[in-house]
């Protein structure tokens, strides 16, 4: 019995040591099998390929506040989204009904970019510097794209005389949720994104496999937009030109079917960088109806009149998204670059060149052999025509808000928007409400200062 119990003890001790050692790993096993740590360059790249976060959650409030459409009073009162209702009448109470608002969507994209920028150097030994640089450039592009959206929504329009005093947006570069957020100045905000983009443009690929990924042309296009927003026409034109250097091919609208419910295909040749807005019931058929003056400004031979719009109970609704669906395209496309370059030319004294460029575009928009090239007598007229065509071509592209903001600084092109519901509302040029209120929750939980 003694030997037996001695052996028994020995076995027990051996067992014990084995068990203690093997149980240690129980506390290190990952809790969820569907989750993985970031441990390769392709993981990092996959984060940027998350299109629902990086591309298709773009803000829709700026378009709701713009003058492309109107909504009937009864439809307005039946809307369930407070943010949509109030954005339409420029009321202060927006973004309080849901945390899934534009601020969240924009800064979520910023945070994905930051996670990528934070992790990318860990893989420098296992990848070429070319690969690493191109992924870093893509992350910088997405961050700049998002921050520029934020600037367009939450800051006052750019004014170089005051841009060091005006408030910009928080420029997040960290992934630590404990870091307190503050607003930069407007000038800092612009300089930050311009600098990042100028860095990114060096390493972004010329061609991309998917139009949801940024290319060199996309960076040029975004820079062109940013300088346009700053009224820096020369540089805006130069970057639009750089963009068009890579590709300037336009779709001939004669090839599209006017009877289709979504006539313009997704990822078509004109698309440089694909993004779409989050769905907003207020904008879409059957509620959102195209501004009647805007609709009537389309010539009968203009194919866009039937490709972009369709009649719905006496009014027109929009169907011309570059997404090939009811989802609204908000990305970069070649036509916008034509218009930006044309405007820049007209504004810098090259009216004829600008009009010529415009005619190239419009020729592809009119029924074959019906288009008579536009001629103008002076710079002012050229600019007017170009701006009008810009509005028509880029309807529902979510660019109008940016255009309204910048054009309001010129008396000749300023707009007062009116809304007629049970009562009427008005947004005069340069109103404080051109900067949306920052979500109240954010103001309370950070050091971010609310807009006036």
């Amino acid at each position, binding site marked *: 019995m003694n030997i037996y119990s001695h052996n028994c003890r020995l076995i027990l001790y051996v067992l014990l040591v084995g068990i203690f050692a093997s149980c240690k790993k129980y506390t290190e*096993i990952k809790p969820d099998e569907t*989750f993985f740590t970031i441990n390769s360059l392709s993981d990092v790249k*996959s984060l940027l390929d998350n299109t629902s*976060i990086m591309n298709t959650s773009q803000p829709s409030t700026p378009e709701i506040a713009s003058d492309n459409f109107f909504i009937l009073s009864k439809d307005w009162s039946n809307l369930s989204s407070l943010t949509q209702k109030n954005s339409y009448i420029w009321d202060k109470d927006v973004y309080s009904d849901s945390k899934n608002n534009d601020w969240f969507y924009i800064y979520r994209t910023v*945070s994905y970019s*930051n996670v990528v920028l934070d992790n990318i150097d860990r893989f420098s030994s296992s990848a070429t510097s070319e690969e690493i640089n191109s992924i870093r450039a893509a992350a910088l592009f997405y961050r700049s794209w998002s921050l520029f959206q934020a600037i367009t929504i939450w800051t006052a329009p750019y004014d170089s005389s005051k841009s060091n005093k005006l408030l910009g947006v928080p420029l997040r570069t960290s992934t630590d949720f404990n870091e307190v957020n503050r607003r930069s100045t407007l000038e800092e905000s612009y300089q930050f994104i311009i600098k990042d983009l100028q860095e990114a443009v060096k390493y972004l690929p010329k061609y991309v496999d998917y139009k949801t990924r940024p290319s060199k042309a996309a960076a040029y296009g975004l820079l062109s937009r940013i300088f346009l927003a700053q009224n820096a026409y020369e540089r805006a034109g130069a970057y639009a030109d750089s963009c068009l250097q890579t590709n300037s091919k336009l779709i001939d609208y004669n090839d599209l079917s006017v009877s289709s419910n979504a006539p313009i295909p997704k990822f078509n040749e004109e698309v440089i960088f694909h993004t779409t807005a989050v769905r907003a019931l207020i904008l879409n058929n059957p509620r959102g109806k195209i501004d009647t003056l805007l609709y009537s400004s389309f010539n009968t031979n203009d194919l866009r009149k039937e490709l972009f719009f369709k009649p719905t109970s006496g009014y027109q609704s929009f169907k011309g998204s570059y997404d090939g669906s009811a989802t609204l395209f908000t990305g970069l496309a070649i036509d916008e670059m034509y218009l930006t370059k044309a405007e820049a030319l007209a504004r810098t004294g090259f009216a004829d060149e600008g009009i010529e460029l415009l005619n190239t575009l419009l020729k592809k928009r009119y029924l074959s052999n019906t288009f008579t090239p536009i001629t103008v007598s002076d710079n002012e007229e050229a600019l007017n025509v170009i701006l009008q065509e810009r509005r028509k071509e880029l309807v529902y592209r979510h660019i109008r808000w940016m255009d309204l903001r910048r054009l309001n600084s010129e008396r000749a092109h300023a707009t007062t928007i009116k809304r007629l519901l049970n009562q009427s509302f008005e947004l005069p040029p340069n109103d404080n409400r051109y900067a949306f209120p920052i979500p109240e929750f954010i103001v309370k*939980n950070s050091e971010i200062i609310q807009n006036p």
Partner: protein
Amino acid sequence: MVKLLQLYQKITKGKLTPMICMLLWNITIAYSQTIKVTGKVINANSNEHVEGATISCYSCTISSQSREDGLFEILIADTTKNLFITHLGYETAIVELRKISSRRDVVVYLTPNSSVLEEVVINTGYQTLAKERSTGSYSTIDNKLLNQRVSTSIIDRLEGMSTGLLFSPSPKPSMTVRGINSLSSGMEPLIVVDNFPYQGNIDNINPNDILNITILKDAAAASIWGARAGNGVIVITTKKGKLNQPLQVSLTMNQTYTAKPNVYKVNNMSSSDFIEVEKMLFSNGYYQTWEDDPMHPPLSPVVELLIRQREGLLSENELNNQLGMLSQINVLDDFDKYWYTSGLNQQYNINMQGGGNQSAWLFSLGYDNNKSTLQDKSERITMRINNQYRPFENIQITTEIAATQNTLKAGRQPYSNANLVNNAQKYLYPYADLVDEAGNALPIVNNFRSRYIDTAGNGQLVDWKYYPYAEKQNNIQKIKSIDVLANLALRYTVSKSIQLEARYQYEKQHTSSDLDQSPLSYFTRNMINSYAQDDGNGNMLFPVPLGGILDENEAVLEANSFRIQSDLSHSWNKHSVIGVLGFEAGLVKNRASYYRTYGYNNQNQGFVETDNAKLFPQYYYPAIMLPIFSNRNITGTNTGRVSYYFNGSYDYAKKYVLTLSARRDQSNLFGSRTNERTVPLWSAGASWNLLEESFIEIPALSLLKFRFTYGFSGNMNPRSSATTLITHYPGTGQLPEYAAIGLHPNPYLRWEKVRNINFGLDFSTHEDRFSGKLELFRKKITDLSTTVPIDYTAGFATIPMNSATMFGKGIEIELKGRLGKNAFRYTPTLLMSFVSNKISEDYLATNLRASSYISGAGLTRIPGKSPYSVISYPWAGLNPENGNPVGRLDGQNSENYSEIIGQTTIEDAIYQGSSIPTVFGTFRNGLTWKNFGLSVQLLYKGGYYFRRSTIRYGLLYDNWLGHSDFTLRWQKTGDEKSTSVPSIQYPLSSSQRDTFYAFSEATIEKGDHIRLQDINLSYNFSGSIIGKLSSFQVYLIANNLGIIWRANKKGLDPEALNTVGHPYNLSFGFRANF
């Protein structure tokens, strides 16, 4: 025995396992030849004759009893080895026949039991303690109490059985011990079966296999379970075989009838009222937007009729006729006739056990067959085999295998979800006619306008109508789960005071759920049509194949648990020490997968491959492009733990007891930093048995004991991580594969800590005529992990953080009586619990608007209030001029609803109180007269409030959701005196008008009520009245008999709001012991 075997086969419908056949065979073949044994039974202490001792053996068909003079005789087979002599008041004796010289005049000595009544023992899952040795707070529910009710699930038998244990309907935690101890999802107690936490579905356990249940409530009781014990622990102990015990067979059978639920209890709006509202909306042009909508949203039959009349397709007369006919229909009639039925549950169980000197065994087999009131059919087979083997004096080996199979075939959908397959979010209109007079299913409106469906596809699409009554036969849902649990324990007695034990348990539960949506189901037909493509030449192509759609779900749970423990016990003079010291580890893995098959043919298992990457324009609105979802999904979770624990008690002269326990936990669920530097959770306790002191003498009492404990336990929270974790998703052809951030890191996350102070007093008069317990407790729960909203400029909106503190306190009173004598006995029991919780005042509420907390009945988390609270907008009645609800804004009456909802702060809002009971109790009356037994149990719940549903006009217009409050609405000046229901309004001046009223003070009711829970009537056929039976009991149980008093005047059952309610049920059954 042969009869038994036949009976057995009947029960299990021939599904006998070979093993049990053999077992029974062994018993039955032992007939051969009989011999007679005679002898005498004598009390070993007093040498007196013992009358009424039972003499039996394994193979005996007839047991025998000793007479008044202690003499007995018994006929046994000549192969019999042992005789068992049993008597309730004595230890069992065994006569080994081969060791005695003569079979005549055998003298058997019986030693009296130390205590006649079964000693109350407490099982903590780690050790079994005598009640006297504990300082903590426990409740035990013995076998007799568990048998007061009949149920398939053990959990259903616990309500009202213990102080501190509260059951609540969803969305509140279904079962809590001593209030709320956490603010995240896991608020329910840890359930331990025998020695390890039970990981599978607790309904796998057959209640007939359970010996008793111990509920561990305070720190001293529960802290041995450390970071998992914060919500209390429920330890379930199953029946085991015992050494030196003759064969015992017990058989249980019962049938439970459940009454058909009363579907008319739902608050439906009448068809005529509903039609009137639709006519009013139509005349106001409300439906124009829907008519114009290119997505063809559904319009109700009444609106379609009105449109046809407008278009001149229907005369005024015809319209009125048709509307008149529709207003006669009540959809509830069809639900009453075709959906709901009475239910019937059948339960059979056999349990056999026996034991010799070296080994003991138990075998149990159970079968349940249930038919629910919604025509769900389920079956459960449970089997449990327990073996104990003692090859040497100091080694004991225990093995246990338990297996359960559950199958369910789903029946009909309950009323509220009847129109589930509906993208347009419409409820069932009250005049829906679902079944015609011949019993055929009729179509009703679903996703699209009937006018669109009738013409879409020019006859080339499949039928697009929705027939609710036919859905059951066209959607066959089957769920099957198998659970196997195996347990091995080795116990080695090193010396008198040291024992070593190693235990290993393996559990695997496999659940598969199939939903076969035939080509006739609405879901399948709708998919086929939505993806149909017109090829332009007048041909229809069907990318979703014209077969059925099969959804398969599979979940596997695998748990490994291991424990090494040493038990110490030592006594010297008046001192006694006992303790356990151990190490345990466990890993629980969950895996689940989901897969969808298109074109499925259940006749030949055929299917069709589909292109899951391609986008198809939807037939009803081609601008919407969707892929054919494969819905393939694989998930998995792992929970690993390693713990070290100690628990000891010291007793001096049975007067003073001191206890101490400590446990250290590590887990993969904690942040990395927490695992690195953990401090053990500990508890200490003391008790003082006053009557043992020489200087205290209270003649009336036999027991007076004070107890005090202090200590900590914890709660684990589900997910956290030290680094950013991502999830991968496949590409779709048009788009590359991608990843999403799944978990943002918070490496500091640690367990929630529950500090527990408990003061207890136990008393008892002589012979336990009156006994009772009083417990006072206080809790402070710190480091509560909540998902905290953060400044989402960080890119994500919430993160789990240890961010809150909560307080809990309570009183528990338990009083028992044993009255009457001889044939008549009355045993009343009163249990009362007062439990309340309060979130700390300084908890940072992230939003001060009341609207964030005013909602349904869920967790509210208002600083300074109960975690489940009812708060509402202040109510100032109805406006006498127009019936508008009036609220308060800046101290003034106001009808600006969006401002009221936007501006009302938590301080301005009315706090009514807790939404879970803060006082609850049981009054149980046990009566026995001769062989009759009667038990009546009343349950009380009080000190809480609830919000009732009401009419919301916006939901009525948009979603067809009516409410019977419609008839109570304000209609003319003066009505405001008798009603609080606002007037109907169109168009609604504000979409918040409904919200304001629905969440105002006006819809709050008091929850207090008394329920007649159950009545149990039984009769025991005593002694050997029926041949071979040693006892036989028949019983009749009526359960859920309804509310006998309630504080609300509306006749509402606070535990069955907005549902058809719980019908009563009636059980009849018997228990027989052989």
